[in-house]
């Protein structure tokens, strides 16, 4: 089953008189359970594509389907609901709420989805164990290393049991050892839970973890290798 389907998607930005074409007619399908890397140099459009799939932005043209729903027709609140229930995010800058503990950061999506305190507690502890951070539950981000923060971010992304996790340069701000640890955790969780992972990267050490590699250049898919290929 297709978790993501992108049809002829374009994205233009106009700054003053200058128009920038970030995506120029991208077609892409991602199936359930994939561990796919979007690769390409800076400015290739991989982050833009990730943002469109993640309902953070809307395309200038074309259609994006996520988990069976046409997200290009959704209004602002509906897109927020989509992100809350179906999509998890991991950012290169960890993106944790600084005033919340690790437990509370992971708990936040569950809170927004209306889970009971007992349900939230069970799920959060389960995830803390999965990322090996049970002893850091009460620590705030400024009390954790970069690698630990990114692991909390992974746990948070998985908290609402999303169909899809999108990671934008997840190891960019980590050293080699931590980067390796983060990728191994993501890979293991993909295999254990079957959640689809799509991550944008230009780091060759990260690309090797992917089972499928989609290469973008100048806003277009130029190569698509791995488990699923679509012309």
């Amino acid at each position, binding site marked *: 089953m297709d978790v993501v389907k992108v049809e002829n998607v374009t994205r233009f930005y106009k700054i003053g008189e200058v128009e920038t074409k970030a995506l120029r007619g991208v077609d892409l399908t991602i199936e359930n359970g994939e561990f796919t890397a979007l690769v390409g140099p800076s400015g290739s459009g991989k982050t833009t594509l990730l*943002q469109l799939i*993640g309902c*953070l*932005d809307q395309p200038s043209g074309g259609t994006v389907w996520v988990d069976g729903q046409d997200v290009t027709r959704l209004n*602002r*609140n509906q897109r*927020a*609901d*989509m*992100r*809350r*229930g179906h999509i998890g*995010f991991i*950012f290169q*800058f960890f*993106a*944790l*709420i*600084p*005033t*919340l503990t690790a437990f509370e950061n992971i708990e*936040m*999506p569950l*809170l*927004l*989805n209306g889970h009971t305190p007992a349900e939230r507690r069970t799920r959060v502890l389960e995830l803390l164990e999965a990322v090996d951070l049970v002893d850091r539950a009460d620590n705030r981000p400024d009390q954790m290393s970069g690698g630990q923060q990114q692991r909390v971010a992974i746990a*948070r992304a998985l908290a*609402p049991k999303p169909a899809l996790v999108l990671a934008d340069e997840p190891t960019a701000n980590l050293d080699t050892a931590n980067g390796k640890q983060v990728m191994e955790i993501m890979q293991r969780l993909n295999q254990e839970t079957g959640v689809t992972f799509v991550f944008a990267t230009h780091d060759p050490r990260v690309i090797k973890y992917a089972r499928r590699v989609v290469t973008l250049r100048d806003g277009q898919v130029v190569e698509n290798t791995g488990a699923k290929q679509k012309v």
Partner: protein
Amino acid sequence: MIQLFKMAFRDLGRNRRRTFFSALAVGMGLALLMLMASVINGEMGNAIESAITLQSGHIQVRAAGYDENKSSLKWEDLVPNPEQVAGKIAALSQVKAATPRLFASGFISTGDESAGVRIFGIDPQSPASDPYRQGVISGAFLTPDDRDGLLIGNPIADKLHLKTGDQVSLSVNTSNGNVDEQTFTVRGIYTTNTYGFDNATIFLPLAKAQAITQTENHASTIFVLLKDTADTNSVAKALKGTNLEVKTWTQMNSLIVDTETMARSYISFFYLIILAITASVIINTQIMSVYERTREIGILSAIGMRGGRIMTLFLSESFLLAVGGTILGVLLGWLSVYLFNIKGFYIGNMGLSGILIGNTIYAKLTMADTINVTIMTFVVTLLAGLYPAMMASRLEPVEALRAEK
């Protein structure tokens, strides 16, 4: 909601200094409002109290058409058998004192110097005369049967270089339009700390005043003091029905009442200015907070927090600031009023024609004023947080995530 408040509380704690000074701005604004309200209350209340206790009483019962500005002594303008009328009024349970008084005009002279005066013929033993008795600073108060003693105000004594025991000549208008002159002894000198009153008024025992003005068994008015000012209208209503006119203190002191209304209108204008300044501090603080946390707002949006909830988060911060600021403000306000009243504000002999103001203003803070200005400040602080909260809720997640940390 509890979680949002927890987040809001912690967010305020991220920059404690800024949060403290924002709350302090709210608090100082509120304290200033409380002080202004209490000073107005104190000043106007003092003027009204002075007018009631010294001059008009709560109610006066007098002949129809009597004009206090003319102080007519014609019998048809006076109340006959005033002791009898006063006795009936004093029987009412709400009445503290009811006593006949005679008002006349004249002038007092010593050798080459003279001064125009109002003459109050009073019953020295009535409780209504207590303010004058308590104000004696030299000599003694009058007695009902004193035939040649008078009590003069301190400013008059200073002007005419008089002391207790000195002889003075008093010329008085009489009921038949003539002028009678007699020599009196300064029995005592008084002050009510109200220059406008002390500078113009001398006292004679009622019997002597009636004799010198040839108004036997008549009085200008029955002066009535009540136990509670709030009973004025109900007692006035109960006293109507005879051929005498009943006047309340609001009718007799319309200038003070109008001045108080005007003062409160002016004060409302200053309230607006203070509240606007307070609001601008909060708006500025919260806008800075939104700019500093733009990326964080993007993260909250990315994990699925709707704009409405983001707005609620920032409004919660404004709410907590409002709570902290108003608590601080009430405490500062009480402290300000307390400190103000240690010595009061000395204004000296400020004489406004028609308004009796004591020489020192004291602040009087009422619960009603405290509640009103507190609610005003709280609401304004909340409203000030509305625009920054809306700003935060409308940020596009993709733009917000690009912001610098």
